[in-house]
């Protein structure tokens, strides 16, 4: 039935080697052209083809003429008889091969029948044939281009780069971006944040009125002469905030004691020192 040995055809699909494929391709082409139309059964093996266009191209090359001058009509007939043969043998063909067959049958009819110009937009048979010829030429051109690319002296195959490159050592310098606004914002916000978190209410040392009065009673018991009140209090003026509370409390206490007749106060003028003594009447004990 087929001239292809089973081993030959089995080898074809799995092959990845482009060179081997190219050789197979050449073999196939030769077989196609040698056999001609006398033995169409030869061409039924479609395993080695990459779709209907590829098959058409192989058939076209079997015409041994320039693709530009190829007879599309003959090509269409060749393809159709190929498909017919395949069907006769009940071979399974992929759908796209059949679609192409249908299209070629249509093309054939358009080429054989005189052109009926019923639709301006419709392409004539010749135009359709030219389009197909173009596609075949273009596919072949791309195939040739691939071969020419692979035939170039390639890096790592035929030409070589420096095997031991001396790599550039990158020394990184960082430059930092920050402007005055960033700086001030950072300062202001952290000052503010911190002022909120660190406010502590200090426990203030406060003399109560009673404490001041007790102190005055103890100290003034033996004062018969006018004496500046500060002289008694100075020993408690250790810190400024204590001074304030001592003065305030003892002044208030002294006023209270005057009202009670326990004490006399004298001040010559505003902001002058305040003098204090025990009243004569109650000054029962001589101090001297």
């Amino acid at each position, binding site marked *: 039935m087929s001239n292809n040995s089973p081993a030959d055809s089995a080898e074809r699909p799995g092959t*990845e080697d482009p060179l081997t494929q190219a050789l197979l391709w050449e073999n196939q082409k030769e077989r196609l052209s040698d056999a001609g139309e006398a033995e169409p059964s030869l061409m039924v093996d479609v395993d080695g083809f990459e779709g209907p266009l*590829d098959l058409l191209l192989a058939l076209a090359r079997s015409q041994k003429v320039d693709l530009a001058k190829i007879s599309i009509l003959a090509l269409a007939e060749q393809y159709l008889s190929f498909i017919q043969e395949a069907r006769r043998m009940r071979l399974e063909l992929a759908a796209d091969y059949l679609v192409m067959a249908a299209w070629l049958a249509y093309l054939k009819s358009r080429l054989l029948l005189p052109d009926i110009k019923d639709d301006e937009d419709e392409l004539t048979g010749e135009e359709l044939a030219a389009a197909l010829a*173009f596609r075949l030429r273009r*596919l072949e*051109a791309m195939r040739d281009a691939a071969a020419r690319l692979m035939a*170039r002296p390639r890096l*790592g195959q035929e030409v*070589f780069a420096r095997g031991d490159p001396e790599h*550039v050592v990158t020394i990184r310098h960082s430059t930092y971006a920050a402007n005055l606004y960033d700086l001030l914002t950072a300062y202001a916000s952290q000052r503010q944040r911190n002022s909120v978190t660190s406010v502590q209410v200090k426990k203030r040392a406060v003399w109560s009125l009673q404490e001041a009065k007790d102190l005055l009673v103890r100290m003034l018991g033996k004062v018969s002469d006018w004496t500046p009140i500060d002289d008694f209090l100075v020993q408690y003026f250790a810190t400024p905030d204590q001074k304030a509370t001592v003065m305030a409390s003892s002044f208030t206490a002294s006023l209270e004691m005057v009202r009670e007749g326990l004490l006399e106060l004298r001040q010559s003028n505003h902001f002058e020192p305040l003098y204090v003594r025990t009243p004569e009447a109650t000054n029962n004990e001589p101090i001297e």
Partner: protein
Amino acid sequence: MTDAVSEKLHLRMLEAMLFASDKPLQEADISARLPETANLRHLLVQLSELYEGRGVALKKLADGWAFRTAEDLAFLLQAEAEEQRRLSRAALETLAIIAYHQPATRAEIEQIRGVSTSKGTLDVLLETGWIRLRGRRRTPGRPVTYGTTPDFLEHFNLEAIGDLPGLDELKGAGLLDSALPPGSPMPMPNDDPDLGDEEDPLEDDLFAPDVVLEDDE
């Protein structure tokens, strides 16, 4: 320094930089590392001449310059040859189509090959680093466009995409025109990293490298 002395120094600097690198260096990058007074074009010509006929040659590759072993010495260096994955015929054709027709969509590749492209074919090519996803075509469905990379040029020893073998003939024959039938405008393959009018960038999230945020703490 006299002109002759400084020129000699510049030539040595150029030689050292190109020799040290295994990748082509762009002229702008070389200039940045040479003194301002250096005339790079002139130096490159001089250096090329210096290496003419030697075992190593200065080549203009992938829009840059690089030293490569002389092509005729390939036989000598087969010990260094890298094991290369063999590409299937489908992959080779697809690569050629992308190279000559870029930017090209999958549909365009399939239209030229007349057969659907298996996912594996594009994957294999992407893995070689020779092709890349460029962007999206501004047409319905916004298909991804493919193009070649600088590594492609470097691997195939090409100065620029315009130096693809047989490009002028293909153009002249109208075979790079994807429209049927052969029409007037003859497109040129374009591997410009900048997207063309008909391309949109890929989505940001699709293949964007992670954005690295710097932090010094």
